[in-house]
């Protein structure tokens, strides 16, 4: 918010400068760069990015540096942290640190992939419904409502139960249950934008519906969708955690959710086995959430209107 207010005077000053320099003014020529600058000026966004980068890159060199297979049994079960291995062992005697490093990869991969599925389905439905309106809108929104009224976690559980506990199924299940809000958001943006003058102008110039949707309206509807996609990553990470917590994770792919789910029964005797992966999930969701918020501030349509 502070970044938003601080940047307002710049908006007022802008027309004066653009008169002085006939070529297109730099902020308008590169709105992405301006947004990035705004984003980087936002402390919570920076913190969020740092957390995410940390979590994203820790798993990558993890195995080579730490060199442990998360499924290997390295010693007696329930060794507390502080000894060897550093973060202790879980219910089977598996190395917690190795599992944390390797597990983050799967967890974040599920998060990003599921968010991608959410965005693809949601934007397609929302864009078509919002652009065409009428019967198309009614039909597509009925489908959306159908998915919206299903209890999401329950529906995901049913999907995983039916098709098997595989990480790919989990990802698809999460994507399939969480797209309706994105669809509704996209539809709202399209409904708002399709009546505006620049769209009418493009239509008058002979643009077809595909061009209008993809090249004219979507770029202008993008900011809120980008924000919701960022937050969808966090939701997906939590979803993966919840499914694994309920015992529906893929037992052959180490993830933070699986760690919590498998160790949950022993939480009272060995707190570290669930608290550490829990903290990792918490950090990941916090990071995603902060980034999403900062993106929201940076690409706010009110700032874009100056161009």
């Amino acid at each position, binding site marked *: 918010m502070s970044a938003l207010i601080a940047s307002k005077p710049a908006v007022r000053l802008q027309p004066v400068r653009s008169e002085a320099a006939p070529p297109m003014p730099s902020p308008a020529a590169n709105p992405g760069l301006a947004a990035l600058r705004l984003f980087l000026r936002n402390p919570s966004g920076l913190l969020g990015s740092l957390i995410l980068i940390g979590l994203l890159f820790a798993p990558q060199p993890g195995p080579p540096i730490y060199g442990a297979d998360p*499924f*290997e*049994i390295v010693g*007696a*079960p329930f060794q507390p942290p502080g000894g060897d291995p550093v973060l202790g062992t879980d*219910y*089977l*005697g*598996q190395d917690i640190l190795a599992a944390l490093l390797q597990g983050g990869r799967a967890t974040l991969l599920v998060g990003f992939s599921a968010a991608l599925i959410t965005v693809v389905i949601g934007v397609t439905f929302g864009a078509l419904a919002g652009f065409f309106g009428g019967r198309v809108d009614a039909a597509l929104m009925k489908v959306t409502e159908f998915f919206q009224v299903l209890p999401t976690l329950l529906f995901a559980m049913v999907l*995983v*139960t039916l098709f098997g*506990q595989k990480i790919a199924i989990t990802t698809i299940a999460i994507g399939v249950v969480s797209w309706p*809000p994105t669809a509704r958001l996209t539809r709202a943006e399209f409904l708002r934008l399709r009546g505006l003058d620049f769209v009418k102008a493009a239509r008058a110039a002979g643009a077809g519906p595909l061009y209008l949707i993809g090249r004219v309206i979507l770029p202008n509807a993008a900011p*809120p969708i980008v*924000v*919701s996609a960022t*937050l969808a990553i*966090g*939701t997906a990470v*939590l979803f993966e*955690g*919840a499914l694994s*917590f309920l*015992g*529906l994770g*893929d*037992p*052959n792919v180490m993830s933070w959710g699986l760690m*919590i789910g*498998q*160790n*949950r*029964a*022993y*939480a*009272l*005797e060995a*707190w570290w086995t*669930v*608290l550490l992966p*829990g*903290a990792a*999930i*918490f950090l990941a*969701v*916090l990071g995603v*959430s902060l980034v*999403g*918020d900062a993106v*929201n501030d940076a690409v706010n349509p009110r700032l874009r209107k100056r161009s």
Partner: protein
Amino acid sequence: MRLTKRTLLGAGLSVLAAPLTAPILGLPEALADDATAPLVIGTNQVPRHFNGAVQSGIATGMVSTQIFASPLRYDDQWNPQPYLAKSWVVAPDNLSVTLHLVEDAVFHDGHPLTAEDVAFSIGVIKANHPFQTMLEPVSTVETPDAHTVIIRLARPHPALLLAMSPGLMPILPKHVYGDGQDIKTHPANLRPVGSGPFKFVAYKQGESIQLERFDRFFIPGRPKLARLVYRILPDQNSLVIATERREIGMLPFLSSVRDIERLAKVPTLTVTDRGFEGIGPINWLAFNCGKKPLDDVRVRRAIALAANRDFITGKLLGGVAKTATGPIVSGSPFYEPAVDLYKLDIAKADILLDEAGLKKGPDGTRFQLTIDYIPNDNDQQRNVAEYLRAGLKRIGIALQVRAAPDFPTWAQRVSNFDFDLTMDNVFNWGDPVIGVARTYLSTNIRKGVIWSNTQQYRNQKVDELLNAAAVETDLQKRKALYDEFQKIVVSEAPIAYINLTPYKAVYDKRLTNLPLSIWGPLSPLDEVAWAQGAAGAGR
């Protein structure tokens, strides 16, 4: 956006907190100073119904044994004791058994219990009970008078006396069940009428079962408890907490290591492993012998050699479980300890696999297998399966753990031979004829039937030994036959025996005359009582 973000953060916190907040369901604490206080029995098993004549398993058995009486019951030394039969005579030719019934037994609805009811029940059990070998040799049942039953056998059947135990032969009222309806779906299965110490009051589906003292029970002065309440809590943690808080007075069939260790420290509770000799539970790793490469005995032996049972029982199971060495539990009179022990030997396992022609690939992997396990039993099943994934990797077998969302899914896979390896937990049920032979007889390979010979193990010699032992009445000769059977089966390894399931029963210390016979919690609780004046907290 705000709302979404806040919900996200809140949910993130709740993932952290959720494992630490176990749900505690409130129910008034059992007051032991009141002699009429109910005994609350905790279980996470939901019974389909209460008729143990057509349904095996502990969920039905725990309740069925209280409602229905049986001809015999057992002490803690495998000796039959009078129950509905005040005496019994085994004919010298071993081809008939005569039961003399008590005369004053009545059903809960007031009808007298007669020989007709016993004959009817034996017929029902023979036709419907899943343990087909249990009464299979019974040819006819005669009832010369109202209190005499003669069971005629086609061939000697030494397991018959054990098959008359409370959990295996509940005596049903013919006037209720003999109305022509299908016994397996009979409405009375959910509103049972028996002649046992407690009568049925109410069942709240999946929640609780209430039984009440039967005042005209045929043993005078019993039962001593006024009421039994079975509290069904699907979550094991809730059960343990409720037991700690003394809301549950009896928690049978506890097998989780941490739960056992936790409750053993509670000064107001008794934790005992007595009372499970009859059931004889073994936790084991079964091979699908009908599938390559597991049809090769060398591969099965190699896997058994790589499964470090010392680690499993000592570390994973925290030392509370005994190692299982063969198909018969060590508490049984037929147990044979001198078998192959499959001590951990990676080098020997590697040699066996090389000999079988399954060489290591460039990445050190020989071949892939899957392993299934019974869901909702972490300590005995899931953890051992996951441990094996690491253990078998050492001999070049890439093991994929296949989780099943619920019991029927697992049973479906295993009974249809759709598995490579599976963890399983199988009961001996007292006599090898009842609970052991079914796993190994080639005639009992029955697709779709769980706990039959789902391993598809075939050995003619084993079939002969088991069939001979089933009719051998001389105890020593019978043991010799079972000894040979055990040696062959352990050596050919259709199953790698892991551990005896460390079932424990937990009792409130204020209870006296605990059921410690060989059938333990599956025996009538007519003698159990609250100790006089034992009330008061803080003891």
